[in-house]
């Protein structure tokens, strides 16, 4: 039994225009030491899936399915059950480090809050652990950094502080929700390397949420490709990069700009992301898919295994798509 088991997770939102189906039937297992990447464009439901797992959905959202953490179902659990797990055993890093820290609190106070809450540390112990953790995320002069207010440190530093805060209680699972999106490219690489090292040191399971194929390569063993709230393809990262079997994954891979090949125009996927209100049966990618038939638009797609460890949700045969 894996540490975190997600089965058939569905997330909906009630809006003024009607219900929105944000996530439809995603599922995965994650154990300590493993890395799972969830990739998809904005609005594909990848963030809402993990928010649902941690019970952080907005008031107008609700979810169905099964999320087992350490054997117990925690989906829709009351905060009395979730609060001791949050940060303590399952931590999350958010996308935008510029707004992730309270501007009116010293960094030391914000870091200490988690430790006094979950571990019952004294102020001094919390401070010592915070300094150790800031050292671990390679912040130079951790002591003086603790004294500062968030507006006094740079964006890259703040993301490191956020990572340090997430790791303070040595969680079993770390969810990184687009940890590098708001950072520039040189810092991105540093943060990704750092995350890998820390995962190795602490033996955490990591869920990496991103829209950037370049971030996934070499960072995750397994990946899930999402589109329109559904899983399109799932399997080992290397295998998917080598021969993707879903038209959407192939289109995503083809749209990565490359410098090692002759110059050509940037490739994009024609069409627009799906309207999530559109709850009809059929493949969500069909309107933009080169291989779609009328059958694709009508009949639902199902995620089926086709090789060891690999699954795809497409009605067209693999040979034809490739």
């Amino acid at each position: 039994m894996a540490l975190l088991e997600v089965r058939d997770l569905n997330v909906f939102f009630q809006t003024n225009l009607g219900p929105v189906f944000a996530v439809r039937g995603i599922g995965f297992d994650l154990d300590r030491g493993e890395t799972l990447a969830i990739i998809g464009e904005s609005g594909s439901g990848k963030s809402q899936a993990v928010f649902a797992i941690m019970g952080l959905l907005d008031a107008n959202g609700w979810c169905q399915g099964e999320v087992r953490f350490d054997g117990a179902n925690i989906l829709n659990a009351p905060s009395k059950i979730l609060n001791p797990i949050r940060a303590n055993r399952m931590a999350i890093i958010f996308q935008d480090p510029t707004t992730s820290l309270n501007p009116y609190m010293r960094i030391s106070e914000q870091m200490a809050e988690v430790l006094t809450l979950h571990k019952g540390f004294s102020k001094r112990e919390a401070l010592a652990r915070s300094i150790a953790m800031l050292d671990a995320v390679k912040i130079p002069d951790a002591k003086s950094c603790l004294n500062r207010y968030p507006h006094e440190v740079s964006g890259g530093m703040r993301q490191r502080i956020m990572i340090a805060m997430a790791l303070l209680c040595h969680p079993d699972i770390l969810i990184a929700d687009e940890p590098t999106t708001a950072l520039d490219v040189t810092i991105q690489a540093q943060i990704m390397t750092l995350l890998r090292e820390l995962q190795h040191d602490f033996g955490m399971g990591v869920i990496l949420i991103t829209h950037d194929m370049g971030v996934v390569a070499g960072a995750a063993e397994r990946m899930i490709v999402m589109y329109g709230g559904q899983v399109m393809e799932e399997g080992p990262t290397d295998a998917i990069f080598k021969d993707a079997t879903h038209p959407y994954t192939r289109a995503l891979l083809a749209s990565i700009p490359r410098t090692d090949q002759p110059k050509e125009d940037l490739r994009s996927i024609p069409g627009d992301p799906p309207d999530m209100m559109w709850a009809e049966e059929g493949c969500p990618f069909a309107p933009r898919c080169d291989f779609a038939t009328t059958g694709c638009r009508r009949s639902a797609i199902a995620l089926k295994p086709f090789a060891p460890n690999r699954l795809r949700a497409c009605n067209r045969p693999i040979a034809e798509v490739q």
Partner: protein
Amino acid sequence: MASLAQALVETGEKGHSPWSDARVRFCKNRQGLVGLALMGFVLAFAIFGSFAAHWPIDKIDFQVMGDVAREGGPSLTNGHFFGTDELGRDLFARTILGIRISLAVGLVGTLIAVIVGTVYGAASGYAGGRVDNIMMRAVDILLSIPSMFVLILLLVMFGHSIILLFIGIGLLSWLDMSRIVRGQTLSLKQREYIEAARASGVPAQTIIRRHIVPNLLSIVIVYATLLVPGMILAESFISFLGLGVQEPLTSLGALISQGAATMNYGTLWQLLFPLFFFIVTLFAFFFLGDGLRDALDPKDR
């Protein structure tokens, strides 16, 4: 957290909080400083002025009583620096008392508004959904009742007591404050540090206390400084109608009312002295509020 901050002081370098930045900006704001100086002047006069007074507030000077218009004017020789009122009581002492009571009404009423309004608004905004709806509709209903009318009714029914005036003004004034705070809380709730605190398992009350209220404080302070003159005006209006503070106590509004009633009989000082302090106090608070807004919310300029 104070001890933690203490422990950190040893390490030397100290960060600049947004508050200390705001203080620096405020100190560069001439208008705000003028407001602060005016308020200091009024406060100093209200607190220490009574040491200079030669007459108690309710002692009638029988030498001027018969002929106030000629004998009761401001004079240094008989100790009536601001003259006397039409009964021959010392206006200097009575003005000081009036300032004290008016300021007390303004400050206590504002304090009630700030505490009740902030707690109510933050709780409503953070809870969201149905709870928020019910709490805000209750505010709407209370707001739709003409507050001055209710206040006058209260004073007429339960007698003209100053305590009732405090409570009445305070209880009616938190409504706007709670709406402002609730709106601000709704936008704060979307910030990622609130989400991060939720994701760290911090309980709701702690989030409101440690993360939401400090971030609301700047807007609450600005609104509160602008609320104080509003309260003073409301109290003056009530006192002008003769329903507020009762004799021998007085307030600026009551003094102005009395002075205005006799201004045709050659005793203009009875109107001008209280009016001067009334206007200076209001200006001080308005200037201070504007200065604080510029200092605390630099983006808004």
